[in-house]
């Protein structure tokens, strides 16, 4: 039996199954921890007593410091899309629809998703590594011994700043994106600004804007919560900080794509 067991444990089948099991276990475990942190966060919010200074600092970190990268990414995406399709559409007689297409695309999806990606890579990763470092250097233990709730001290200002700032970032990004589309269409296809904006105006409804802003609220909160939570449960030194940061980034990416799908199904079908 002993030898049999040994061979069994070396077999590829065993390794594959335990590998799958471990991955699945880790998935459920992480999801559970994030949910639990989410509930603690809501409780802390209800209790109130938010540190204003810290909230303002986190807001400026979330909204202002990420802006150059976010705007670059969203602007570039519009330039790329417009340069690819503008000339073709003008040739086919669809010049009047370029503005509409660009504005729908940008307001509904590109602005918020690309801002989300930019924020994840800049802010989410830094939140996760910051909190993970606090964990592995026992700073979170020190917070607990001093009878301060780490969730309300660390999570609340960060998640709130995400919820507050992400809509602003999205609005600015959308404006820059639509504008970049106009400039590009003019340069590549000779489309007048007037034609572009007339059609853009027709394309966007109030609903698009509201859904987009609501998405931004969810994206911002989710990215901050996941990043905090992944950092919070880090363990084991520098390597643990690295793992936690990677995990935060991957989970945030997947989460906002899932949110986006849910929103698309819920509001546009």
């Amino acid at each position, binding site marked *: 039996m002993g030898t049999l067991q040994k061979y069994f444990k070396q077999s590829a089948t065993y390794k594959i199954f335990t590998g799958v099991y471990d991955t699945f276990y880790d998935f459920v475990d992480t999801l559970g921890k994030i949910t639990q942190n989410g509930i603690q966060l809501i409780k802390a919010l209800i209790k109130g*007593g938010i540190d204003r200074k810290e909230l303002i600092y986190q807001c400026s970190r979330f909204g202002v410091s990420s802006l150059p990268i976010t705007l670059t990414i969203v602007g570039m995406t519009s330039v790329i899309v417009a340069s690819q399709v503008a000339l073709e559409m003008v040739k086919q007689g669809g010049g009047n629809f370029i503005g509409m297409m660009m504005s729908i695309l940008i307001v509904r999806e590109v602005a918020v998703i690309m801002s989300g990606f930019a924020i994840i890579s800049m802010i989410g990763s830094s939140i996760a590594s*910051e909190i993970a470092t606090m964990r592995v250097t026992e*700073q979170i233990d020190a917070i607990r011994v001093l009878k301060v709730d780490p969730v309300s001290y660390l999570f609340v200002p960060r998640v709130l700043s995400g919820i507050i700032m992400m809509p602003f970032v999205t609005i600015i990004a959308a404006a820059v994106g639509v504008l970049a589309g106009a400039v590009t269409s003019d340069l590549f296809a000779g489309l007048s600004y007037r034609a572009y904006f007339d059609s853009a105006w027709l394309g966007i409804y109030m609903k698009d804007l509201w859904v987009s802003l609501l998405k931004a609220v969810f994206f911002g909160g989710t990215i901050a919560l996941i990043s905090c939570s992944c950092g919070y449960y880090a363990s084991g030194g520098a390597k643990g900080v690295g793992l936690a940061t990677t995990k935060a980034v991957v989970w945030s990416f997947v989460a906002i794509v899932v949110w986006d799908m849910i929103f698309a199904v819920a509001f546009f079908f």
Partner: protein
Amino acid sequence: MSIEVKNLVKVFGDKKVIDDVSFKVNDGETLAIVGFSGSGKSTILKLISGLLEKDSGEIITSKGDIAMVFQYSALFDSLNVADNIAFALHERRDLRKKFTEDEIKEIVKQKLELVGLKGIEKLFPSELSGGMQKRVSFARAIVTEPNTILYDEPTAGLDPISSTLIENYIVRLKEETNAASIVVTHQMSTITRTADRVVMLYNGKIVYEGTPSDMLKQDNEYTKQFVTASLEGPMKMMEGN
């Protein structure tokens, strides 16, 4: 009775790190816990302070705050020295509105002077030496006037004079507040100067309990090995898991 530990057990994985440990620390008394690296000393402090969940047994502490001085200082590196020390006063729900900023400034100054530091309020932890960090973390821990104080190697890495300063302060604090204290240490000077009693841990069990002066008599094989820092004796290094 201020700290009472009964049949405490803590398991990590399949290793019993704390194996049926019982002891008592009265108010106004200081207990030193000594033992090899990895014998579970920090784990006991973390169990008492509630940072770790015990697997079985009982821990009874009297009401009021428990303070802990961490082995590696654990200062908040995004806050300066003053904000580190005032952390509980700024952030704890029940203390938040109790003091004005000026009063807090005064308290911070006082606590810093107690540990022999002055004028470093605006510095960040990364700008301090290891020994200074240790002393700041000491000041941070006692800012809430706790009545149970846990020190994890408070003098490790300090020069002899700073060690004496801290040791004197541990004694003074105990006398002033009548707190029950536990000091984890490897340093003989800290044991003899601060402790009323000593317990020695080995493999998660208590192998010796007595007074510091009894410990120096070396009539127990374990303490003899510890005091003489000998490789020969009942305790073997090379343990691992």
